[in-house]
């Protein structure tokens, strides 16, 4: 079943600037879909429309079968939203801010439970203005989870978090996915998408330029073999780059090229020191896409 359906979404700002152009994607129930892109690619502009904050200029959006803008009343009780920059009155304490939010929801979790999910229990009586940036992000996440949402929107949820908090947040998100929560994530941490997302789309200048599972997106980009070659022996492969004696070879068929190289080395009794072979990473694919599109 489809949780989020976006068709031909275009968003235009009052000056006529098209922030999002003809974007389409589906997110299945219980799946995590990540929207990646350079700054200003249109990720947040897209997500804001899916959240129902604004009406699309063109195209349609369905969340759990409803229009999130005109049927806000039906959609909101079932979704949780963590904005890229959400606000809390600075003079409320953490538990007061959470309690206020709980009072606006149909069936909220207990405040203590929400705070313990994000490890903020020990900060419950601290004023929001005294929280660190990372703690504020976690409070934002607690509020997004407070209504036990079926669909969760996370706009850069781990920006400003220290490595430990980031790992804990990932663990929490994985647990939610196992419970069947659907997640639409935007992030500029590629390893975050690689670690968590079932499928992803890369946006550039308002358009989706690549879409699929991590391996589908990455497989379109060449793998890399690097080593320090023996001196005075002609290599059987085309060298792409050489940095301080170390050569790099790119290939679209890693297994075949590696086999060829290793057989040659074996037959000739040659040592390839520091041998390293790897598929393209999401980061490489991303950089290549950004470069191509530029």
């Amino acid at each position, binding site marked *: 079943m489809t949780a989020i359906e976006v068709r031909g979404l275009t968003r235009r700002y009052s000056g006529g600037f098209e922030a999002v152009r003809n974007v389409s994607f589906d997110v299945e129930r219980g799946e995590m879909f990540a929207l990646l892109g350079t700054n200003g690619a249109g990720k947040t502009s897209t997500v804001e429309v899916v959240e129902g904050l604004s009406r699309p200029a063109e195209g349609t959006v369905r969340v759990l079968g409803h229009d999130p803008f005109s049927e806000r009343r039906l959609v909101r009780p079932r979704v949780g939203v963590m904005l890229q920059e959400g*606000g809390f*009155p600075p003079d409320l304490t953490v538990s007061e801010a959470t309690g206020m939010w709980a009072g606006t929801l149909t069936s909220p979790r207990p405040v203590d439970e929400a705070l313990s999910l994000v490890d903020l229990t020990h900060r419950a009586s601290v004023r929001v203005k005294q929280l660190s940036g990372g703690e504020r992000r976690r409070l934002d996440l607690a509020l997004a989870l407070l209504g036990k949402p079926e669909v969760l929107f996370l706009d850069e949820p781990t920006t400003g978090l220290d490595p430990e908090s980031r790992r804990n947040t990932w663990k929490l998100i994985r647990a939610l996915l196992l419970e069947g929560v659907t997640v639409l994530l935007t992030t500029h941490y590629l390893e975050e998408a690689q670690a968590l997302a079932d499928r992803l789309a890369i946006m550039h200048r308002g358009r989706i330029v690549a879409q699929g599972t991590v391996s589908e997106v990455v497989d379109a980009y060449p793998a890399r073999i690097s080593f320090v070659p023996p001196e005075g022996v002609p290599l059987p492969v085309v060298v792409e780059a050489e940095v301080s004696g170390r050569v790099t070879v790119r290939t679209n068929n890693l297994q075949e090229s590696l086999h060829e190289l290793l057989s040659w080395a074996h037959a000739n009794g040659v040592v390839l020191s520091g041998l390293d072979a790897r598929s393209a990473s999401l980061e490489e694919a991303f950089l290549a896409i950004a470069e191509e599109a530029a």
Partner: protein
Amino acid sequence: MRAVAVGKAELKLFWRNRTALFNSLVLPLLLVPLLISVDLDGRALVVGVIGFVLLMAVYYNLVTTFVARREELVLKRLRVGELTDPEILLGASLPSVVVGLGQTALFAVIIGAMTDVALPARPWFLLAGVAGGVVVFVLLAAASSAFTRTVEMAQVTSLPVLMACMLGSGLVIPLSALPEQVASVLEFLPLTPVLDLLRAGWEDGPVLRPMLVLAVWTGLGTYAVRRWFRWDPRR
């Protein structure tokens, strides 16, 4: 009512905000002896103080509240929750309205007792005036906040409404002291019909026209809020 959750949080914030506390609790209190020394007519005093409360505790306070919550991105956050837009505005206005109504009652009783004002013969007109005034000034505050970039700027952007109402609605200068043509134009200011209705609680006076004028201001205010109210900061 879900908006009450926001209202309760706003009340806590109000209590923690010294400027707002001073503006709405202390300032009108300082005004009472001043007014009593100028004017000995108790009824006019009660009416005048209610007018000041509507302007300061309700209108001015709410302009700053709406701007502060917008700039803190609180309104934006509330808008991704379950509350409807009117519920959010209602919740945010609740403390100022409650404090305003409390002051109105308190001052009316204090001044009434000090100057021997008779109980109003037609209290429903008094209530209609207060209720209509609250609605109109909440809407005007929301509309004004749309043209106010920072909390500090509220001192400037609220001036047109504040000055027009203080000078033009008979709070400082009685309308009867002005040329008839000027007075008949000033009847269309948002505070004038409120004061007319308050006076009608005690004495014969226009009732239908002030109610109509208030209804028109409510309509205009609603339109302005729907058209211009900003939920997130200009960036």
